[in-house]
């Protein structure tokens, strides 16, 4: 492989739950019976149709299995394939979209037991996000407390488009628990479909849905800043996962401009939004949504104005690039090294401890 690949930390890989049957051993008897008797299954998110090429690269698939469902393949293609020393598992099963919050909490708990037993315990290079039922922060906090003792859980996973924007106080107990335990908040692209994918309603095509995640993330970024999440939890880091990042510079220009005129509405935001974002928010590398040339990418990186913000990711098994071309043109070797190791270590307090 041509690119730098020595000991990186892959901040976004997706182990796939084969189906509810795989969770049965981890559910209590009541929910086992509910799931079985009612035939509950198929809670993969509509945001990520597993059959699409885009969400299972052809050479990373195994016939008859969901992409990402095999530890062997993940080992071979993601960990060994990119020489990563660690990879963070972000399972995308649709726990956050379940309307019954009690069922959601039960599935979240089972998911975390499943990922512990079948992935973390079997592969020492893996770390994981805690799946929570954010439908009710009490459930989510209970689950965070249950997992916090296991240092292999490094982050709490939320979706970018849910009931209310992520700065809303509904989420604050979750942020408080995360901050208490040195956990990062990971926000993955995806919608619970509580609201239309755009503020103008439902588009016709998946391509539009996927493109619209960028706007959804931007709305959440405004919310996190202006509701004062980082003023309240100064140690908290938020990682935007699969959000793209080339929109960030122009987003920050606009956010700063609006803040200058309207900031008295949110007086706790006492410095420009871009400063707050650079201190607290990180972005995974893939997809890069790259401009046409490396020179243009260098300009974008320069406009981002910080070498600390990007975290290496393959987005395995999603198809964001071909072969081993995980690096878009325009990244210097120095920056690659930061993105591979330094930035992930600084974004995840628990990795810093593990690697020190």
């Amino acid at each position: 492989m041509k690119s730098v690949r020595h000991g990186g930390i892959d901040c976004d890989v997706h182990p796939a739950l084969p189906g509810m049957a795989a969770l049965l051993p981890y559910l209590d008897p009541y929910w086992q019976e509910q799931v079985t008797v009612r035939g509950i299954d198929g809670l993969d998110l509509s945001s990520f149709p597993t059959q699409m090429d885009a969400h299972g690269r052809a050479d990373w698939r195994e016939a008859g299995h969901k992409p990402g469902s095999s530890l062997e393949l993940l080992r071979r293609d993601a960990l060994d394939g990119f020489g990563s020393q660690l990879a963070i598992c972000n399972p995308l099963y649709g726990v956050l979209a379940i309307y019954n919050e009690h069922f959601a909490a039960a599935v979240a708990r089972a998911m975390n037991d499943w990922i512990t037993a079948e992935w973390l315990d079997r592969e020492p290079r893996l770390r994981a996000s805690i799946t929570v039922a954010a439908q009710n922060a009490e459930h989510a906090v209970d689950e965070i407390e249950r997992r916090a003792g296991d240092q292999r859980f490094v982050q709490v996973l939320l979706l970018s488009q849910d009931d209310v924007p992520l700065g809303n106080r509904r989420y604050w107990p979750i942020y408080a628990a995360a901050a208490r335990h040195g956990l990062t908040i990971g926000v993955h692209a995806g919608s619970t479909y509580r609201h239309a994918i755009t503020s103008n309603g439902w588009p016709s095509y998946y391509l539009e849905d996927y493109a619209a995640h960028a706007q959804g993330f931007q709305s959440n970024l405004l919310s996190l800043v202006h509701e004062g999440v980082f003023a309240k939890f100064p140690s908290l880091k938020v990682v935007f996962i699969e959000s793209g990042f080339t929109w960030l510079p122009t987003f920050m220009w606009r956010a700063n401009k609006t803040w200058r005129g309207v900031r008295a509405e949110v007086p706790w935001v006492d410095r420009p939004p871009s400063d707050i974002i650079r201190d607290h928010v990180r972005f995974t590398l893939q997809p890069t949504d790259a401009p046409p040339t490396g020179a243009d990418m260098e300009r974008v990186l320069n406009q981002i104005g910080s070498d600390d913000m990007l975290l290496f990711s393959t987005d395995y098994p999603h198809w964001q690039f071909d072969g081993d071309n995980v690096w878009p043109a325009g990244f210097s070797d120095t920056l690659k090294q930061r993105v591979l190791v330094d930035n992930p270590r600084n974004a995840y307090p628990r990795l810093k401890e593990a690697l020190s």
Partner: protein
Amino acid sequence: MTPDDGRILVAEAPANASRSKLKLIDCDVHHALRSSKDLYPYLATRWHDHIAQFGRRRPVPFLASSPYPKTAPALSRTDSWPPNGGPPGSDLAFLQEQLLDRYNIEYGMLHLLTSGMDERNQDLGNALCCAINDWQYEHWTQKDKRLKAAIVVPGEDAVAAVKEIERWAGNPDFCQISIVTHSIEPLGRRRYWPIYEAAEAHNLPIGLHSSGTNGHAVTSAGWCSYYVEEQHNVALSQQNLAISLVCEGVFERFPALKAVIIEAGFVWVPAVCWRLDQHWARMRGEVPHLTRKPSEYFRSNLWYSSQPADEPENPQDLRQVIEWLGWDRLMFATDYPHWDMDNPEHVFKFRMTEAEQQQVFAGNARAVYGLA
């Protein structure tokens, strides 16, 4: 509500003459109704009674306030309230003095923030659109030939919209068609296509000024809390709107159609294009009606008004974005009299060549709107 006038004891008017030798085309000027009664002469009596009894019904929580109260009364510069009364933008003479004469404006493209399109009673909505157009014609464009109106149409009722377009098409006082951007469905969806067909047939651009209410949450993640968020989210929704027009194939079906994105800024366009191109490459099988990369439609069928122009720490970054966008895409706008307006003399903090100035401040708009 009127702004605190600051108890100014002596107010000598500054030199009102424009310092600009360049004649400008301002792509976003807001005139305003003094009250909804201004429209009564153009509305059937049935609607006078209806409005008096039932009022207007739009999918918003408050009768007479924006869902997100703005940062200034009437969303406007506090110095834009006409001395003779009425809300900002409602007094032609004051608008001439404070905007058209002051900045040497050759043409000002009018955008009324009131529309019938988001009225839930569709018959009333249609009647309001027709009345607005009559009122604009009689009280604005006929009184100052520098002012050009947009044909306000009830876009959720395409049949009525086309009828209204036909009523004004060919009248040189009307240079574009106005649809509210907070539509019930994304504007690329088929229900709106008859409007685009008529627009293309009459060579009238679609002017998409951030406006209207549709009942959808302001963000795809639900309702935000603050105006400081909402103001920015309105621009984000315009990004989704542009994506919709392109991806749903509007410009394939109507290749000569021009669409102008107004009051959403422009700096976001390159990154939206990069993202679309990248993911289209992997998903193009879903949208076989697109025969070109998404970014190419942005370069051939969409234009962008400049306001609010962003202010990066390094002003050269803005030039870079315009290079990516294309100098032929950007059209200057003040957004007078709104609080976030841009002053043509100070808006761009980097040096433009004379040719670039010509394009941005006048030439592009002249071409798009077919102005003399």
